[in-house]
């Protein structure tokens, strides 16, 4: 088990964002974290990446307690936040170099160049990020999230705001990553198409609780994902 979450509770200013959340993810999974806006997906990812603390509950990432060993967790995970901003005055190469320097094992220029090739940005490495399209920026964000060769990658709504081609590119990239490097991927989305194309397991979250979880193929046997989603989140809004 690479992720084991038990009874996670988090509230902000009296509003409960997570209300006893529990789930687990196996190594190598592409795990879809499905839920309407405001269901608690981003809060969960932030807690799992040791950016914020929970009020109570337990989280083990690859055996490390995320609250007691945040640095150990950060070394083996990485993430692409939902509204990821970029240092637009940097080139893609400089951007990756900067983040690589923040890890103990730095990447060489060749390695970061290769990462840019992997995400389809070859030939653009010396262009300023401000000249990139939204899809290119998202691919650069994924390259940044791969800089420490993470065992576990969190992606928060990675296809949001992308056109169909951009979305397809990101899907292909994630499938390649998972197959080639065995990276476990947890990604949050409210787009059912993303889930059906990528995931082998999903969890549906609503009002800070997991309302349904399991293997996608098995769940498909019980009806369409869309029906399941609407039934599970009927009080929430997409």
């Amino acid at each position, binding site marked *: 088990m690479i992720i084991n979450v038990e009874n996670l509770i988090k509230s902000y200013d009296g509003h409960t964002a997570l209300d006893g959340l529990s789930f687990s993810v196996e190594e190598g999974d592409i795990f879809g974290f499905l839920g309407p806006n405001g269901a608690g997906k981003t809060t969960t990812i*932030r807690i799992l990446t040791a*950016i914020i603390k929970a009020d109570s509950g337990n989280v083990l990432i690859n055996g490390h307690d995320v609250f007691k060993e945040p640095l150990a967790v950060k070394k083996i995970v990485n*993430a692409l*936040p939902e509204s990821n901003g970029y240092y637009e005055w940097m080139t893609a190469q400089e951007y990756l170099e900067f*983040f690589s320097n923040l890890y103990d094992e730095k990447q060489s220029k060749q390695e970061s160049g290769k990462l840019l090739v992997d995400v389809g940005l070859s030939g653009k490495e010396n262009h300023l990020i401000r000249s990139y399209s939204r899809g290119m920026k998202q691919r650069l964000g994924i390259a940044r999230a791969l800089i420490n060769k993470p065992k576990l990658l969190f992606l928060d709504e990675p296809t949001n705001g992308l056109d169909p081609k951009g979305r397809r590119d990101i899907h292909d990239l994630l499938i390649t990553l998972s197959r080639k490097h065995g990276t476990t991927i947890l990604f949050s989305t409210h787009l059912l198409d993303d889930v059906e194309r990528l995931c082998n397991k999903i969890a549906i979250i609503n009002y800070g609780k997991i309302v349904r979880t399991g293997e996608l193929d098995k769940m498909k046997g019980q009806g369409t994902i869309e029906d399941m989603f609407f039934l599970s989140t009927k009080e929430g809004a997409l």
Partner: protein
Amino acid sequence: MKSAYIMQKEIRESILTPKGFLWYILTSIILSVLSYLFLTNSELSLLDQGEMLYLIMNFITALGVLIGLVFGADAFAGEMERGTLEALLISPVNKMEIALGKLGAALTNWGIILAISLPYLFVVGKRGQNLFIGIGYLAVLGTLLTIIFSAFSMGLSARIKSMKNSLIISFFLFLLVGSPIFLSTALRMTWFGKFLDLINPFADAINTFDSVVIDSQNFSYQAWRIAIICGYTLLSLWFLKRSVSKLEM
């Protein structure tokens, strides 16, 4: 070491940019006008050269503090508003390392302002007394004041998470610490005025410059004021540490 990379990034982002250079060109233009006026204008040129040196030192210190406040206010809230903070926090860097890197950039900025001002200080003060000792005090106290105000503003930026609001509060603080200078001499000479001056790190620095450059007084006269400034430096770093430890997205 990771702080050094953050600092390097900050320097490229805030100093080696058109905006950064505009600050420095404006600084040098203001210093040019001030020193030319001091030395040539019929009335101002008749100020004692120690006094001119003292006035320019005050201006440089105020400018260093002011830009330090802007650096501080942008530190966390600016990154958060631009959406770049989360990626930084995901990497295995201690929050205080991020803060120290940013503080390092604010100090680099102060160093550049000091370097820009040196030729002016030499030109204006070369026939006056206490030029070198004055520059020494300016370098040390300016550095401490930059730490105090940048760290405070940075701490606010981490707590408030709004660049605009932390900037407004920081500027208000700057006006508050600068205001005793506008008080009448009579009021400043009362015990209350003297007390206000003593607990105000900015006034402490200005009064130290006055005492060193104009009155040629030695270190023993400055010890209390410098001790208070050092106390504020430690206090501001403690405030910064506490604020960033509580920082959440």
